[in-house]
């Protein structure tokens, strides 16, 4: 193949995509050439996924135009993208666990190709790229890395000229990642263009020749990834440094012992896509906010379940103490009675029940209060309603009528309700995941202000969030959760967006040595 180096393989011109009032992609210009590995870099929510979905025909742009070999195209569906020669490997695979490798691949090929032919091609092509795969193996029995090879192989058998990989290494061990890179370099040498989405700076430096950086839906720049330092890349990804005046005032109760302490807690992964927690240790003192940063999928959900008590059966090692007394054996309701309150990330069906009224949702985490439920087990709906009214009043929750279903509230208002519900009890410890995720700016500010007010009563707060800016503004100390491991916390004033970005990208490892 001798690709024309002058005309890019794929060009995006002024690509914009909006969801309601939210602009996910804003006027993005983009070029990728044949035989090039091109990184798409950005924080969560920067617009990377939206952009590749546009390229792969899963979404269509509101404005702008794609060019393929210099000619305008409209990519209407994934099928159309595949027919053009675009292949995509998703972060969560679309494989069939109970079927064999060959059967999985056969399903993606046109009818009429026999299973034995498929097996032969699997063997040839996988040998060609140094990906050992047995065509008869059951996909469910394969490691995640091997499953990814099946996905890649499925794309390769369709001879793509552009291959998109969405955070391919997030599920891989370092060795598997190295093997993947070898395959991708082979492909590049054969003239295939590769669009590689990642937030891991070392990988981008090692693998790609160009990097396009997105922030808040806009393209920041396209740079030469080899000649740009990791530090510069991190800065471009996260943005400017913070104004110190916006930070939470220092801890009031200085010198106090830690109120809540977790030491060497481990939890094995429940499924292939879950993250195992290894040796998690953290502590937080009264009046302090501890921020836990990290990209989604690095163990946030699992950690929340351990802290809330939902996962008491799964924790294999370590201790969890409140005031020096172990709470490791207590379920969520018992922990709540001791003053530990949690707000999980998922509102729908986890932190709230959308088919039930706000009064009922108020009772969900207040059923041990004798006010709401008498000793004989009778619920006082009058009191629950009063509680819900109080939450609504104190935390400015906008409701359509006096006791609506939780599902009829907007996301931001339901979030305020859920956080208010837990704050109402003046907790000793509040653990919040993604406090302002999907919430408008006004509501986000209200939530942050309410959390700060709580500090004055000596409440300790743990915030688990992907929103770096929020963590930098809110926290006293920050640590990073990366691949199920938690780094040592750093004082927030010593942390810059850049240094934490490097930690999240796995470059500076106070996170612990990555096994090699």
């Amino acid at each position, binding site marked *: 193949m001798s690709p024309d180096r002058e005309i890019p393989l794929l060009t995006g011109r002024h690509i914009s995509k909006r969801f309601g009032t939210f602009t996910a992609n804003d006027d993005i210009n983009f070029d990728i050439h044949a035989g090039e590995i091109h990184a798409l870099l950005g924080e969560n929510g920067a617009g990377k996924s939206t952009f590749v979905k546009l390229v792969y025909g899963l979404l269509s742009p509101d404005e702008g135009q794609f060019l393929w070999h210099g000619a305008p195209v409209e990519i209407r569906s994934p099928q159309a993208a595949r027919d053009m020669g675009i292949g995509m490997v998703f972060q969560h695979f679309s494989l069939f666990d109970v079927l064999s490798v060959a059967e999985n691949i056969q399903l993606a090929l046109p009818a009429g190709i026999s299973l034995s032919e498929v097996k032969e091609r699997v063997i040839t092509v996988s040998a060609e790229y140094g990906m050992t795969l047995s065509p008869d193996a059951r996909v469910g029995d394969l490691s995640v890395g091997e499953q990814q090879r099946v996905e890649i192989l499925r794309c390769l058998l369709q001879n793509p000229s552009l291959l998109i990989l969405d955070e391919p290494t997030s599920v891989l061990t370092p060795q598997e990642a190295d093997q993947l890179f070898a395959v991708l370099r082979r492909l590049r040498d054969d003239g295939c263009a590769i669009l590689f989405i990642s937030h891991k700076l070392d990988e981008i430096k090692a693998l790609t020749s160009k990097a396009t950086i997105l922030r808040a839906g806009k393209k920041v720049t396209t740079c030469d990834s080899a000649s740009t330092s990791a530090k510069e890349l991190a800065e471009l990804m996260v943005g400017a440094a913070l104004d110190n005046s916006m930070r939470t005032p220092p801890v009031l109760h200085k010198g106090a012992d830690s109120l809540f302490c977790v030491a060497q807690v481990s939890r094995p992964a429940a499924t292939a896509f879950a993250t195992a927690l290894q040796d998690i240790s953290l502590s937080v003192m009264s009046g302090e906010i501890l921020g836990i940063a990290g990209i989604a999928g690095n163990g946030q959900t699992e950690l929340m379940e351990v802290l809330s008590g939902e996962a008491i059966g799964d924790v294999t090692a370590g201790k969890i103490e409140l005031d020096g007394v172990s709470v490791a054996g207590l379920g969520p309701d018992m922990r709540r009675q001791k003053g530990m309150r949690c707000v999980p990330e998922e509102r729908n*069906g986890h932190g709230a029940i959308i088919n039930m009224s706000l009064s009922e949702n108020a009772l969900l985490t207040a059923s041990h209060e004798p006010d709401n439920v008498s000793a004989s*087990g*009778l619920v006082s709906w009058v009191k629950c309603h009063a509680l819900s009214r109080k939450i609504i009043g104190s935390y400015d929750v906008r409701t359509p009528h006096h006791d609506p279903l939780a599902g009829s509230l907007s996301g931001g208002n339901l979030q305020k309700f859920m956080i208010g519900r837990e704050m109402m009890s003046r907790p000793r410890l509040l653990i919040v995941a993604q406090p302002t995720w999907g919430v408008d700016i006004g509501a986000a500010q209200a939530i942050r202000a309410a959390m700060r007010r709580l500090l004055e009563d000596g409440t300790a707060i743990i915030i688990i969030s992907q929103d770096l800016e929020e963590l930098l503004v809110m926290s006293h100390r920050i640590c990073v959760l990366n691949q199920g491991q938690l780094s040592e916390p750093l004082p927030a004033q010593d942390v810059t967006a850049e240094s934490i970005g490097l930690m999240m990208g796995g470059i500076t490892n106070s996170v612990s040595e990555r096994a090699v």
Partner: protein
Amino acid sequence: MMRLTPRPYVSPHQLLLVPVLSVLLSIILGGLIFAALGYNALDALYQFFVAPLSRPDQIGNLFVKACPLIIIGTGLVFCYRANIWNIGAEGQLIFGALGAGWVALYLPESWHFMMLPLMILGGMIAGASLAAVPAFLKTRFQTNEILVSLMLTYVAGLVIDWLVRGPWRDPMSFGFPLTPYYPDAALIGKLSLPVVGKLGQLHWGILIALCVSGLGWFILSRTLAGFKVRVAGDAPRAARFAGFSPNIVTFSVLLVSGALAGLAGMVEVSANMGQLQPQISFGYGFTAIIVAFLARLNPAAVILAALIVALSELGGDSAQIAMGIPKVVTGVFKGILLFMLLAGETITRYELSFDLRMTGGKMSRGDADV
């Protein structure tokens, strides 16, 4: 292509409309079936739904039929609310009748003043113990409760058959498979109402049924236990977050529904038969499933739902006598009614649209657990 789009919000009016429309549609479809079978549809529908209400004693009998349906249906509401599929209420009813029958037949005479309370207790314990089997297997081994509870219904039918033909048979029954008559203390008497007096076969059991329904409504809507049942069924993950144990909920709802089915068995025999025989139920345990759905899983609405379904049972009798329509047509009507209720559920939860174009595009997932 027919397409379903989830509705973001469902108004309470729509929810009320579903059972009403379902009943109406089922009646219309029932009429079509009568016509297809060669009967005059209007006459048949009159015999089915109006004739049974034309005499006061018939109204009493309507309540007699509805009585076990109310009691069992209330228990099933608890199960289905918790997303536990007990379909073995028929067997639990039989076991309840046996538990109560054992008390009635063997309680010493000096204890007869305690007869009915002890029979109620015996019936409820026996019914609950049969339901405890799927409860235990479900919580311990995740065994499917649907098949286990159903298999036990067949077993229960054979147990009663064995008892009334063997150990418990009345030696004076001339070889008929019947136990001795219960002592008077073990019988539930006919109810005499003020002004109208006795109404057909109406008995005191209906008061038990009304109490059960009321109590069921109270527990489900006014107690923490009821709240836990609702949360566990509606949002299991939220239940774990709140700290409600799913196993305790599973066990409780199965025991409650088993106990209530057992109570229904006790009432049926004591009020209507006065002795045990191989056949003591006429599918009440299965019919109650439809009652629970028709009531939209609300224990208070179970009374009305049971009356509607009981009317179709009586109507079957009346249509058979007057027009020779086979009584099993009631079963067809019940099946159609359940289908209509399920379709109504879909129409309230999804927007139905028909489009002939192929639309490409967005990905979204629509998986939902059973």
